[in-house]
């Protein structure tokens, strides 16, 4: 689409008003600020947990015990930082692509209150040891999870109705991914909490499904959708291939739900279930290459501009990490590799490569690239660069340390040495990991500072909307 057609479209379609802009900026900023808060909380807990594996007697308090803070870390960063932050940016993408005010600003604020309420209640109850057990990402007691689900349902409905009432003719691919995410989350959340599967080996099937599908049918499509909108905006050019985006959407939907059982290879689960998961993991490379390649090829030809735009650096790393982490995950599921690497820190490294290098980096990029456009307050690129290098350096240390520790652990076990040898072999790498986590946390402090500077500026927003668009309304 040339810039001429974009301009014609803008002129032809009645735009949203300055007042709508202000209301949406308030919503988007409230979400991203909450997300940054939970990122700081989650980073503090994560870094503390990493330090406890180096100095196990550090802060020996009940509510800071490793087994209690680990689920607080994962809930804060996954359900807090990522879910809340992605939802906020999704509201912005929907607002822009629908060219219409959100169906209800009040509902958007109510949704955020519910999410924050659940996150705070989850933090307190997990600190007290109130948990459903070490069942990853569904540790919260059912009533707390229900509050979170209610918030997500409200947000999904709000987004859906906004898109129904859109002023544009066509539904952009970003909206497909966003609509899909908000459709799939409630389904998998309900399955994860069904009381019928609280016990027995069936619980393991549900656990494998839930812990993987929440990544692949919630975080992945949501962040991809946002990037399909953010990246072309930031580079002032269309996406490399719209059709590849459509392919990625359908391939992700057909393949991703099937691969969860690769978390329990060699478990007393049906062999076909494990083999399906492992084989379809290779099929996942289709949507992964389609989207990550699409983003990188969109950037191709704009490198000179990108050198001056640190916000895009985050997206470049995010797209590359998506490809690399997915390949790592698919290969790690092979039975031969899994026998050696399962139960080791290699998995922890993979999880952070995916959730941080891929999803978080794309979200950082989208926040830096999109939030100033609606709040009217730009941040100094020098601090974005600082955040970028801290985040990238921290992640590199973290992932390398965990991959190396994982291989050492696996080799120690395969050699039949006493278990404690694998702990001793991991020890220096635990220290490197803690240092990496510390760098990431420092980067998040810079991010919070940056976000504060990008807070909505009421005066500038008025100047911002062109009088021509106001008149066209």
């Amino acid at each position, binding site marked *: 689409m040339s810039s001429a057609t974009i301009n014609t479209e803008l002129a032809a379609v009645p735009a949203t008003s300055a007042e709508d802009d202000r209301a949406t900026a308030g919503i988007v900023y409230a979400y991203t600020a909450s997300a940054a808060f939970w990122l700081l909380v989650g980073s503090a807990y994560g870094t503390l947990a990493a330090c406890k594996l180096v100095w196990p*007697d550090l802060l020996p308090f009940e509510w800071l015990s490793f087994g209690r803070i680990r689920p607080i870390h994962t809930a804060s960063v996954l359900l807090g930082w990522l879910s809340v932050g992605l939802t906020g940016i999704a509201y912005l993408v929907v607002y822009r692509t629908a060219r219409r005010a959100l169906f209800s600003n009040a509902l958007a604020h109510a949704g955020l209150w519910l999410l924050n309420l659940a996150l705070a209640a989850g933090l307190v109850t997990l600190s007290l040891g109130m948990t459903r057990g070490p069942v990853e990402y569904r540790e919260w007691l059912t009533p707390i999870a229900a509050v979170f689900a209610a918030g997500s349902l409200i947000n999904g409905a709000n987004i859906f109705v906004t898109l129904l009432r859109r002023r544009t003719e066509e539904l952009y691919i970003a909206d497909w991914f966003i609509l899909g995410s908000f459709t799939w989350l409630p389904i998998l959340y309900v399955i994860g909490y069904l009381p019928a599967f609280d*016990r027995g*080996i069936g619980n393991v099937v549900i656990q494998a499904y839930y812990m993987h599908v929440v990544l692949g049918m919630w975080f992945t499509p949501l962040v991809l959708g946002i990037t399909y909108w953010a990246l072309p905006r930031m580079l002032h050019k269309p996406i490399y291939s719209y059709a590849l985006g459509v392919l990625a959407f359908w391939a992700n939907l057909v393949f991703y739900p099937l691969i969860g059982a690769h978390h329990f290879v060699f478990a007393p689960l049906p062999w076909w279930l494990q083999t399906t998961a492992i084989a379809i993991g290779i099929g996942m490379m289709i949507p992964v290459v389609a989207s990550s390649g699409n983003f990188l090829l969109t950037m191709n030809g704009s490198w000179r501009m990108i050198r001056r735009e640190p916000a895009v650096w985050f997206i470049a790393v995010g797209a590359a990490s998506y490809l690399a982490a997915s390949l790592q995950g698919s290969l790690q599921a092979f039975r031969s590799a899994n026998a050696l690497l399962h*139960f080791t*820190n290699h998995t922890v490294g993979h999880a952070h490569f995916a959730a941080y290098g891929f999803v978080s980096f794309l979200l950082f990029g989208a926040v830096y690239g999109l939030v100033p456009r609606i709040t009217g307050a730009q941040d100094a690129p020098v601090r974005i660069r600082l955040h970028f290098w801290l985040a990238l350096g921290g992640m590199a240390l973290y992932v390398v340390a965990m991959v190396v520790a994982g291989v050492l652990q696996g080799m120690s076990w395969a050699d039949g040495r006493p*278990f404690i040898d694998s702990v001793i072999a991991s020890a220096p790498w635990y220290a490197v990991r803690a240092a990496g986590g510390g760098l990431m946390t420092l980067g998040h402090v810079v991010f919070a500072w940056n976000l504060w500077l990008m807070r909505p500026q009421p005066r500038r927003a008025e100047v911002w909307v062109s009088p021509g668009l106001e008149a066209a309304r």
Partner: protein
Amino acid sequence: MIGLNALFHRRPEAIVVIGAAVFGALSFLIALRPALDLNAAAAARPSSEPDAAVARGRALYLAEGCGYCHSQFVRPLFIDAAYGRASEAADYADAAPPLLGTERAGPDLSNVGIRQPSVMWNLLHLFNPRSMVPESVMPGFPWYFEIVDRQRAGDGAGDDVLALPEPFLPAGKVALPRREALDLVAYLQSLRQE
């Protein structure tokens, strides 16, 4: 195909309905139905009469998140041979939730009741793992113990009195397990996959 393409580009409800239908069907095939079938097929092992201390201990094991670092899942692989026989579906039939786990920052505990039968070793290890295994990175659980003067505890002579040198305990002090510590040990002792 043009019709389909237009449908998904014009109608958000098409994305939601088709997306939910495909995802729901796949979820049923890959998760719900296998889970139902497996639970129906797996007969529980005839277990000894339920022990209240073991049940309380298991609840504490969940609350303290022990299962994040300790698996209870022995694979049919030579790497896992040291932990005993491979786990079977029946081993988990009564477990709510089953604690297979995904990580071994610490060793597998499927058989720890046989491997580590000493109550005192387990108590000392829970109080501070470094007292038994210097290189261990496991957290201690001192809040499940009471630290008292050695004299008050009868000069450290009782069965349940933890007498440890400094730095684990201040000089002249001993640790007495609270009920929670004994419950946790009872649970660990019950883990036998014979």
